[in-house]
């Protein structure tokens, strides 16, 4: 039962990263793809009907995590206190950037919210990447199952660690580049003419950085701590995940060159998904590894009671099927290129 919920949370998180990832990516690519105020409005219109639904995956993932693994929710959220609250502020800024821009027909107002939207998206990407990096690296859990990390200490991955160290900063940069490519792919799908050409170009250039950073981060992970690859050693089938990562990278490039934007977007979605699955496979059955392995939070010692998890599976299955129905309807209604402003 715990294992099922572990994978449910992982899948929901993946949905969040893939879906809201393109909103964040569009924000990072905002100025590159949208050169004029009019074009930037098109960028916003491309995500404006869907971003809120996408962000709900974060809330739903958080809620599910809370419900299924309360001890983990308590330890993780209080330990990552500062970065999480900063993420909250960034989410507020991003949402206002998207939704308030069109409220006034004034160029200064537009410029201001364009900047807010782009900057908050950029920082969100870095913070989310760094957060994942922290989970992979492990945190200094105490005997009661709590920890607290300052934002940074000496940028080393051992000793008194901070949220930011060389490894988590690297993870942040990987996320930044990956989401940029992903967002640019989305914008290529949704736009035409010059904006489409710029989006494709950004994917093409960003791809080289992404390949380099992916290789770098894989090497870094392998050398991060002992036993991090033990699941991969014990279950050779799991090597399919890194192979899939490489495959999706190839797909991004191939379809980008061919001008097949939708397929390239699927490629970057697959890349994000497999990168996450790769990290999750390495963690299992840990869900928050501790620097002292004996204190690690696993799916077994942090899960809620069996009855609650069982009954949750019933309503969750019903709820998620309905929710997927909404998403299909929503994306179908707003499918196709953004020809004009929505507002």
């Amino acid at each position, binding site marked *: 039962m715990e294992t099922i919920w572990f994978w449910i949370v992982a899948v929901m998180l993946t949905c969040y990263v893939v879906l809201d990832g393109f909103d964040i990516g569009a924000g990072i690519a905002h100025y590159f793809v949208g050169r004029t105020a009019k074009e930037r409005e098109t960028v916003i219109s491309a995500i404006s009907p869907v971003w809120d639904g996408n962000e709900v995956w974060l809330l739903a993932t958080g809620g599910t995590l*809370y419900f299924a693994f309360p001890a983990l929710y308590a330890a993780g959220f209080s330990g*990552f206190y500062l970065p999480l*609250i900063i993420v909250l502020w960034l*989410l507020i800024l991003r*949402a206002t950037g998207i939704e308030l821009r069109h409220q006034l027909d004034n160029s200064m107002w537009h410029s201001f919210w364009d900047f807010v939207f782009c900057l908050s998206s950029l920082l969100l990407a870095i913070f989310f990447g760094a957060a994942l990096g922290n989970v992979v690296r492990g945190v200094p859990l105490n005997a009661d199952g709590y920890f607290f990390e300052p934002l940074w200490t000496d940028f080393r991955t051992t000793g008194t660690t901070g949220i930011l160290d060389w490894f988590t900063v690297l993870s942040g940069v990987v996320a930044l580049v990956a989401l940029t490519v992903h967002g640019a792919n989305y914008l290529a799908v949704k736009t035409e003419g010059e904006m489409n050409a710029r989006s494709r170009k950004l994917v093409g250039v960003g791809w080289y950085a992404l390949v380099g950073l992916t290789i770098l981060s894989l090497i870094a992970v392998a050398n991060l701590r002992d036993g991090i690859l033990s699941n991969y050693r014990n279950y050779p089938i799991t090597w399919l995940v890194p192979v899939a990562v490489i495959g999706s990278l190839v797909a991004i490039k191939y379809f980008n060159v061919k001008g097949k934007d939708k397929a390239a977007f699927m490629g970057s979605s697959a890349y994000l998904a497999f990168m996450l699955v790769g990290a999750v496979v390495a963690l299992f059955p840990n869900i928050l590894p501790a620097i002292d392995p004996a204190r690690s939070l696993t799916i077994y010692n942090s899960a809620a009671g069996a*009855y609650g998890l069982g009954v949750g599976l019933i309503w969750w299955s019903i*709820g998620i099927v309905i929710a997927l129905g909404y998403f299909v309807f929503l994306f179908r*209604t707003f499918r196709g290129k953004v*020809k004009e402003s929505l507002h």
Partner: protein
Amino acid sequence: MEALTLDRIQFAFTITYHYLFPQLTMGLAPLIVVFKTLAIWKKDERWNEAARFWAKIFGITFLFGVVTGIPMEFQFGTNWAAFSKYAGGVIGQTLAMEGTFAFFLESSFIGLFLFGEKRLGQKLHWLSAVLIFVGTWLSGWFIIATNAWMQHPVGYETVADKSVQLTSFWSLVLNEWAFYQYLHNMGGAFVTGSFAVAALGAFYLLSRKQVEFGKMFLKVGVSAACLGSIWMLFPSGDLQGRMIAKNQPVTLAAMEGLFHSEQGAGIVLIGQPDMEKQQLDNAITIPNALSFITYQRWDAHVKGLDAFPMDQHPDNVPLLYYSFHIMVGLGTIFIAVMFLAAFGLWRGWLFNANWMMWIIMLSFPLPFIANTAGWMTSELGRQPWLVYGLFRTEHGASPMVSSGNVLFTLLGFLGMYTVLSLLYIFLMLRRIEHGADELSATSLIGEPDLGDRESAAY
């Protein structure tokens, strides 16, 4: 200050601020459905205009509700880790259900509702308005069910590691407390929404900006506010009061300012609690009334604060007492004002009564205050417990988060929300100003075609 105190201030501040927005959206949602229904039923495009106008206000308010709501879920983990570890096995259910059943619904259909009128056509657009209504009210249910469990824990067991775990899903979801609290709370949101609609109608009439729409808003707003205000007193307020008397008698005593147990206790209208002397100063009381409304007998015995050990008393009795009295006092004023307005509507003098327009217009902030005071009553009344009778507030905070870090984020929230307030007020004033122009533009043309206003051509 201690970290615990700051954690409490931060939660109180962020939740109070947050709830200003959902109470308006939950209140407006059914009224927008009314507008949409009238438009289709009476084939009168003006009602569609009204729906579109309020949808824009709904949209901005919804956004502010979303962005200030996310910090609430996060804070359970960031600031209240010990509580989350203790109770997550139970209340995680309802919070996760809110995400799965309500948030997906709301967030998907808000886009369709705000931007999709042309693409969807009138019937589907009406349906999306209904689904927004259902979504926001469903969201309310899960939050109330969560809070109700903290007020009145049911369907749980305490396990070996001292945390609580769920034993009965239906007891949690259909908690008796949640039922009455929901009736009362949603009524409160409805009052906020209908007062807002009526107040804007009054403003348009007084300013001669948009007289025709002003009258439409007043008709719907006043009728709804009159029904809503009465509902808040009876039956929902009455039922809620009896729930508290039954399950939290010490809270009832503190709310009412009843320091000493009495045979035939009275209801205090005005008076200031003196905690040192354990008495009310300058009290004006209706004799025997409290006994009657609580137990339906004029001479019933009602327990005062002195009947309970000190460590069970709510830790801020005066604030609790005032919150409750402000709520009830405002609720009484709402009934008086809206009953009179509804009478005027029926007799046909309402639109000419300038003095009444002023009163209706100026009273729009009052339901926000009353709802806030009501929630303060509920939450201060639960103290000193986080989970009533089981888990004390002082044990709930995150053990490793220092006061300096909480102060940092509290100040950050204060700053961030100040900016949000300015933006919201600015945008609302503009919308009211602009909305009037848009509305008049339409009525001059005479027959606008469907969805013209929303030139969302793809």
